[in-house]
C-alpha cells in the first residue's frame, strides 16, 4: 500500500517501519528552542548531559521571539542563559531582532520541504506550509533532541480534507481557516496529520498557507500539508528560502483514516468567539459587538500580505479614537518589506502602534495585555481565558480587525 505525505517524510528519517500508529525513532534535520522553553532546555541539558557534546551544532539553533527584547528581568535572564549555552557550544542564535522562529526557519531555508524540525513552539507545525514536518515539543524532548539528534514519535494517521468551491474577498485565508476549524472542531483532526486539497488552497500563497497550517494546532492535529500549489508559490518560496522546493506527494493508493468535504462557497468573514478558537460564527452574528482594542500579527497572520490587507482597509481612515490597534510584523524580513511598500507608514498614519517583530500581542506579556472587561479583536490563533490577560479575545482576519478598529465594533470590510 502507498504512503501519505507524513508517512513518506518520517520513513525517510527512520530505519523503523513508518506505518500509522507505530512509534519510531525519527532523525531530526533541525532542532531549535525559543526563549520560551529554551532556558529549561539548557537546564535539562546541563543537568542530564553535562559535558557531553551536541549531536550536531550546525543543526541546532535558538530562535528568540516570545518576549523580545526582554521586558522583564526573568526573560532577560532566560535569554542570556540560552546565549551563554550557545556560545559554549558554538551554535547560532536568531536573536531578539529576528522575529518569529518558525517563520525565520522558513526564510533562512532551514525548514525545507520533506525535512523534520522540532522546537519548543507549539505552532511549529506551521512548517507544514512549506512541506516540512515541524513539531513543537516540551523542553525535556528538545534537550534530548539537542543531544541525540532524534526523537520518538508515533506515526499519525492521515485525514484528507477536500475544500469544495472557492472564496473571494472580504473572505481571506483566515476565514477559510476558521471555517475549517469550525467544521473539524478539536476532535476530528485530533492527533492526525491533515492533507488539504481543493482549488481554494491550491491557489494560496505562503502567507495563506501559513495561516491555515498554523491553526492545525487548534484543530488538535499533528501537522497540516497543502500538497498542491501553483507555480507562483514555487517561485515565491524558492525566492525567499534560496532552496529548491520539491515536496513529496501522497501515493494514489495511500490510506486516509477519513475523507472530509467542506464547502466554502459564499464564505463570509468568520470570527472565533471567546474562549475557544473553534467557537466560530459568521460575522453577521456578531456585528456591532463593542471592542476596545485590536491586534494584527502573530505566527498565524503576521506576514506582509496580512498587514497589507489591513493597510488597505485603513487607507485614508483612522482607528476610532477610543480604540487601540497594535501591529506586530512576523519577522525582520517582513518588517523591511512593509517599510519598502509603505505599509507601516500607512498603518502608523491610521493610528496603529507598531512593534518590532516577534510573538508579542498573541503571547502574553509583550506589547501589552488585556485588562478585565477589555474586549479585543485579534488575528492570533488562541483566545483561551487568560492567554492575553483578563480581557476577552475574538479571533478574525487582518481585514476584519482593521475594519472593526475603524468602527469600534466588530465589522466587516464591507461595512466601511
Amino acid at each position: 500500500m502507498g504512503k501519505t505525505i507524513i508517512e513518506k517524510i518520517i520513513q525517510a528519517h527512520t530505519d523503523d517501519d513508518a506505518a500509522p500508529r507505530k512509534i519510531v525513532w525519527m532523525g531530526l534535520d533541525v532542532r531549535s528552542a525559543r526563549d520560551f522553553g529554551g532556558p529549561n532546555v539548557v537546564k535539562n541539558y546541563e543537568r542530564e548531559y553535562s559535558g557531553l557534546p551536541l549531536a550536531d551544532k550546525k543543526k541546532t539553533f535558538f530562535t528568540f521571539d516570545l518576549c523580545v527584547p526582554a521586558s522583564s528581568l526573568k526573560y532577560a535572564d532566560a535569554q542570556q542563559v540560552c546565549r551563554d549555552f550557545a556560545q559554549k557550544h558554538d551554535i547560532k542564535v536568531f536573536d531578539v531582532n529576528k522575529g518569529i522562529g518558525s517563520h525565520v526557519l522558513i526564510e533562512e531555508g532551514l525548514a525545507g520541504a520533506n525535512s523534520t524540525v522540532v522546537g519548543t513552539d507549539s505552532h511549529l507545525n506551521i512548517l507544514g506550509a512549506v512541506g516540512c514536518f515541524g513539531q513543537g515539543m516540551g523542553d525535556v524532548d528538545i534537550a534530548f533532541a539537542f543531544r541525540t539528534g532524534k526523537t520518538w514519535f508515533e506515526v499519525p494517521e492521515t485525514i484528507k480534507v477536500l475544500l469544495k468551491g472557492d472564496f473571494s474577498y472580504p473572505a481571506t485565508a483566515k476565514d477559510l481557516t476558521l471555517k475549517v476549524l469550525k467544521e473539524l472542531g478539536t476532535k476530528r483532526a485530533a492527533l492526525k496529520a491533515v492533507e488539504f486539497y481543493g482549488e481554494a488552497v491550491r491557489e494560496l500563497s505562503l502567507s495563506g498557507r501559513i495561516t491555515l497550517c498554523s491553526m492545525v494546532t487548534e484543530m488538535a492535529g499533528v501537522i497540516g500539508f497543502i500538497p498542491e500549489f501553483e507555480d507562483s508559490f514555487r517561485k515565491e518560496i524558492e525566492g525567499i528560502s534560496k532552496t529548491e522546493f520539491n515536496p513529496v506527494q501522497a501515493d494514489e493508493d495511500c490510506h486516509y483514516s477519513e475523507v472530509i468535504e467542506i464547502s466554502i462557497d459564499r464564505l463570509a468573514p468568520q470570527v472565533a468567539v471567546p474562549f475557544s478558537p473553534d467557537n466560530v460564527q459568521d460575522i453577521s452574528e456578531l456585528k456591532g459587538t463593542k471592542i476596545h482594542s485590536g491586534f494584527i500579527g502573530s505566527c498565524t497572520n503576521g506576514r506582509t500580505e496580512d498587514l497589507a490587507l489591513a493597510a488597505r482597509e485603513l487607507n485614508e481612515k483612522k482607528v476610532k479614537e477610543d480604540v487601540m490597534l497594535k501591529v506586530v510584523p512576523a519577522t525582520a524580513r517582513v518588517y523591511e518589506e512593509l517599510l519598502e511598500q509603505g505599509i507601516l507608514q500607512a498603518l502608523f498614519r491610521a493610528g496603529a502602534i507598531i512593534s518590532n517583530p516577534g510573538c508579542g500581542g498573541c503571547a502574553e506579556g509583550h506589547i501589552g495585555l488585556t485588562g478585565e472587561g477589555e474586549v479585543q479583536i485579534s488575528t492570533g490563533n488562541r483566545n483561551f481565558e487568560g492567554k492575553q490577560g483578563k480581557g476577552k479575545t475574538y479571533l478574525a482576519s487582518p481585514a476584519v480587525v482593521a475594519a472593526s478598529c475603524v468602527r469600534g465594533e466588530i465589522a466587516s470590510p464591507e461595512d466601511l
Partner: protein
Amino acid sequence: MKKGRVWKYGDDINTDVIFPGKYTYSILEPNQMAQHALEDLDPDFAEKVNPGDVIMAGKNFGCGSSREQAAICLKYAGIQAVVAKSFARIFFRNAINQGLPVLQSEEAVENIEDREEIEIDFAKGEIKGSKGIYKFSPFPKSVLGILEAGGLIAYTKKKLEQKKEED
C-alpha cells in the same frame, strides 16, 4: 495497584489553566509548581489533592502551549495518572517524558464520578471504579520503556549506560 480519588473536569482543558503562563519563569521548582496546578480552573485542587489521586477529563486534555510545566506540576502534585477521552499531542509526550502515565478510556470517563475512589492496574490495563472495570489500551513497548524508567531523561541515561557497557 494504588487507590486514588478522582478529580473530574470537562473537555479541552488547556495548559494555561493547568499551569498559568505568568509563572513560567518565576516558579522553577517542581514542588512549587505543584502548588499552582490547575489554579485557574479549580482553586481547591492544589490544596486538597492527595498523593495517588487521579485526574479525569474529556477530550483534548492539555491543549495549548508546549509548556512542560503542565505535566510537571501534576506529577509533583502527586497525581498517579491522568485518564481522559483523548489528549493533546504535546501534553501527551511531555507527560510520558516526565513519567506521568496518561491513559485513554472514554468508558472510564463516562462512568466514573467526580471524587469517586478508584484503582488503576497498569499491568492489566484496567481502571476499577465503583460501577465497574474499564479497560485502557496498554502502552506500546517503546513508550512503556520510557514510563518505567521514570521519564525520557532517565531512559536515555539507562540506554547510554547500557551502550557504554557494550562498548
